[in-house]
């Protein structure tokens, strides 16, 4: 069911939407916690960037889109992959490098793909996928579908040329794309204000005559509403939008990086954790009388089991056959 069809006035539907959002956020959180464990156990290798703390961004925005809208991400994309509906088993198997992984074990954490679900990948070069997003939107417009493309990237990508080249073209050509900047304040160990002349990412929209919004990324409903507006703009008039979503990562940049240290303090991280988007939504659902604590706990237990099953699936899956090495270099 396309979420966009849910009427905000329909309380029941709204409650169901909120419940689903909470469940998705919990799924991502538990999945990522388990990912960290598996990484420590050596089951996952390479660079591995967790989404913990930023769940509301992926959940709120993807809830506002249709299943046939394109999604494209940076390397920090486990969350979006799960939210878009790739089975947790296929995602975990990919992290394990297994043949059953969503990229056949050849992509890994940074390169999750599911073309059938219009999930166009995680990409490893900062800013590199922003022009790809414009291209996907170009394809949608060219074919006359009313698909939209959403593109997730970190605030540090705003300093790289590809971002600017893509925004300009998207605006000139009126491409149906949502540029969603997850501003978590740091690119690796660098605070944005140390490397950006203007720290309000949304300001850049002026240079491209583009609609923009600044959104609280710890409030899943705010993200949902802003993305709905952006999707409308894109779907109806082919107008791109730049969404700056303020969020925070609760973990280190990747599994090999410290949680805090010279670049940010432990206190700052603790302070931010008080804004945990999951706690916030849980509170609201309790306040609204939609779910009580027991129901929330039940949800959590449910997703926990789902994550355990994913790990089991990944564990039991086989590595790709040696022949896979030379397959898919070229299409025949």
């Amino acid at each position: 069911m396309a979420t966009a069809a849910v009427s905000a006035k329909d309380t029941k539907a709204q409650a169901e939407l909120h419940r689903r959002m909470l469940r998705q956020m919990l799924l991502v959180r538990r999945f990522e916690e388990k990912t960290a464990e598996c990484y420590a156990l050596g089951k996952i290798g390479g660079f591995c960037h967790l989404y913990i703390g930023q769940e509301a961004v992926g959940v709120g925005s993807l809830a506002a889109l249709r299943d046939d809208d394109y999604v494209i991400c940076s390397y920090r994309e486990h969350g979006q992959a799960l939210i878009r509906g790739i089975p947790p088993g296929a995602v975990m198997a990919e992290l394990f490098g297994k043949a059953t992984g969503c990229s056949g074990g050849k992509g890994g954490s940074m390169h999750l793909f599911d073309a059938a679900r219009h999930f166009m990948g995680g990409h490893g070069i900062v800013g590199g996928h922003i022009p790809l997003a414009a291209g996907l939107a170009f394809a949608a417009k060219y074919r006359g579908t009313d698909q939209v493309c959403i593109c997730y990237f970190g605030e540090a990508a705003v300093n790289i040329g590809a971002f600017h080249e893509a925004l300009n073209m998207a605006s000139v050509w009126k491409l149906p794309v949502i540029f969603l900047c997850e501003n978590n304040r740091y690119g690796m160990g660098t605070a944005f204000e140390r490397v950006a002349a203007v720290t309000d990412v949304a300001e850049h929209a002026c240079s491209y005559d583009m609609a923009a919004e600044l959104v609280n990324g710890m409030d899943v409903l705010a993200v949902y509403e802003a993305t709905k507006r952006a999707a409308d703009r894109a779907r109806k008039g082919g107008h791109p939008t730049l969404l700056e979503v303020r969020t925070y990562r609760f973990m280190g940049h990747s599994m090999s990086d410290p949680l805090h240290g010279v670049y940010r303090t432990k206190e700052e991280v603790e302070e931010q954790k008080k804004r945990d988007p999951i706690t916030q939504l849980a509170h609201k659902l309790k306040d609204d009388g939609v779910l009580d604590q027991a129901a929330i706990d039940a949800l959590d237990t449910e997703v926990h089991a789902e994550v355990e099953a994913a790990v089991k699936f990944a564990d039991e899956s086989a590595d790709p056959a040696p022949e896979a090495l030379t397959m898919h270099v070229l299409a025949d």
Partner: protein
Amino acid sequence: MATLTYRDALNQALREEMQRDPEVFLMGEEVGVYQGAYKVSRGLLEEFGSKRVVDTPIAELGFAGVGVGAAMGGLRPVIEFMTWNFALLALDQIVNSAAKMLYMSGGQLKMPIVFRGPNGAALQLGAQHSQAWESWFAHIPGLKVVAPATPADAKGLLKSAIRDDNPVIVLEGEMLYNTKGDVPDGEYLTPIGKADLKRTGTDVTLVCHSKTVALTLKAAEQLAEQNVSADVLDLRSLRPMDEAALLESVAKTNRCVVVEEGWPHAGIGAQVVDIIQRDAFDQLDAPVLRVTQADVPMPYNKQLERLAKPSPEKVVAAARRVLYLD
């Protein structure tokens, strides 16, 4: 069969493929209103409209990426670089996005995209505008690389490239655009990966491609006057490379000279040498020699530029050396 310039042959290939398949479109700087910096796209905007002939800002990285994204979305983009010199800015998209997408998605996303434009030196364009990138692109798994030398191959290879489900690099030549030749009408496809024996001989194999084919043919003529008979093999495709054709010719001649426009150190000719010495070692009667651009950035001065470039005389001299005539 009509006599066409290389430019018009490319134009015909583009037009025919755009007529045949509505998902083919052309994008690049000046391809539309201006009719192409080198007029390769003349008339296409008028015929296909601005939806399918798209003028871009000067943003090579960006529009190469838009092309890749469009291919992910199922279209068949043809991306024109005004010259390949400017594609240096777009390498991340060509290498990290286009060439790897199929592989890193585990076979899910094919990448039917063509990147094309003039490669190598023209006349006195100076250091930043006179570069030949064969060896760079041929190095990358996931790409195909072709470099047509004649109008017929320009048409046939570009059409094949557009129909290919993989990213294909088409290296054209500014100095070739005005050259003329017979071009078959309509459906004419040159297979990617097949070399073309341009002239048959017995004494030495001269390997070449793109612009160096003409000068190598001249060298072969001069050699003929000196009673040296040369096989002239136009590689046409640099990745994959037609190893069988190379080995077949060298098996006959036992001697080989490789001619290329680019710099010597780790140039594409080194790979040709590698293949030949590896698989025809016992058939070689002399080391394989190479004729390349001088190992310098291209100078502007006309005389220096001439000295820097490969020439028939240099090919003749190398051929005579592998024949131990000098």
